């Protein structure tokens, strides 16, 4: 099974690199320093989780970046990271704009962060998780699992990527799965 991919967007290069080293045994970690760069990457690749520095300085703040990402990917979990702060309010507002969780860069971070990441990954759409688990059972994730009579075909991995990217296809798949599940629930064939 592949390691989950994490993208860190933080202008404190030092800290970001240290976080990468801290997490790399369990996750596949990339680091960027600017909001713009991060958004680019998310368009091009797919990630399982984002760590965004709330106090990002520069053209875009951490919250800006998060809001923008949420516009095209509603499913990806985002954890905001901040330096020590005294007042919670602005951070809470930021969280309400779509963050899954937040972590402070304090002395307990090395313990808290991995937990927060796991929680966030767990909290993802139950559908996705189920899907992910099932698709990961395929020995060769590149195996085609879906074909259409119009010439398209998809491998397990591809589907997973699309879902994680929350692309059109990914979105539709998710939505349809939800519909299916609902229907089955209605029919009493599946327990919710």
């Amino acid at each position, binding site marked *: 099974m592949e390691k989950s991919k994490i993208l860190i967007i933080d202008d404190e290069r030092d800290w970001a690199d240290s976080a990468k080293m801290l997490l790399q045994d369990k996750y596949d970690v990339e680091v960027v320093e600017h909001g713009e760069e991060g958004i680019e990457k998310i368009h091009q690749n797919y990630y399982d989780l984002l760590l965004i520095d709330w106090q990002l300085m520069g053209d875009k703040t951490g919250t800006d970046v998060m809001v923008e990402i949420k516009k095209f990917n509603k499913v990806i979990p985002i954890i905001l990271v901040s330096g020590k702060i005294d007042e919670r309010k602005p951070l809470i507002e930021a969280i309400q704009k779509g963050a899954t969780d937040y972590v402070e860069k304090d002395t307990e971070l090395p313990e808290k962060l991995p937990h927060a990441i796991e929680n966030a990954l767990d909290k993802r759409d139950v559908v996705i998780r189920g899907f992910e688990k099932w698709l990961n059972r395929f020995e060769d994730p590149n195996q085609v699992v879906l*074909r259409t009579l*119009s010439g398209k*075909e998809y491998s397990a991995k591809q589907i997973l990527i699309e879902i994680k990217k929350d692309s059109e296809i990914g979105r539709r798949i998710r939505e349809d*799965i939800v519909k299916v599940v609902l229907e089955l629930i209605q029919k009493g064939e599946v327990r919710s």
Partner: protein
Amino acid sequence: MHAAYDPPSTFASSCAAEVSSMLVSINCTFFEIQGPKACKSEIHKHLLNFSTDTHGFFNYGHGSEVALFGYKGEVILDMSCAHLLRRKICYVISCLAAKEFGRKVISNGGICFLGFGGDFEYSPFYEEIFRACANSGAKAMIQKKTTAGEAFKIMKETFDNAMSNLVKDSNNGNWIVLLSLFRDRDYLRLLGDGSASLW
């Protein structure tokens, strides 16, 4: 008509093969145009020869909103020759054909058109299920001599049952399969006169 030249079309052909055997078993005369022969000229030739008779037209292969494809993707029927399916009951297991093409067929004299308004999806690991669903309509009309409308209903039910069974069988959920069944079922369309029947 069916032609196997790539995995999807191979699957389609396998469905077609089932239908062929059904027809054989009831001693019905039919023309099977398959493989390389499934080209425009052949199809057109045949259709023209039987233009005035009421028949069934079974197509298994690639399709788009405005066309049906034959061997190696050659366009065999499109909007301009929709009239060739005059007085035919069309059973089309292809993607998207029911959208524009199907409508054109009906407006040009086709009796009815049973097809899909979207991509027909299937999972290579579960081909039997999809074959059964895909052919359930044909089966009904051929063996049980139902109307197109009834066949349509039966097809829907077959998809439903397939989904239910799937859920019962495995506890993790074969999501892709379920998904595809779900979508295929929803894309199923019946255009034209549902009361028509093959016999």
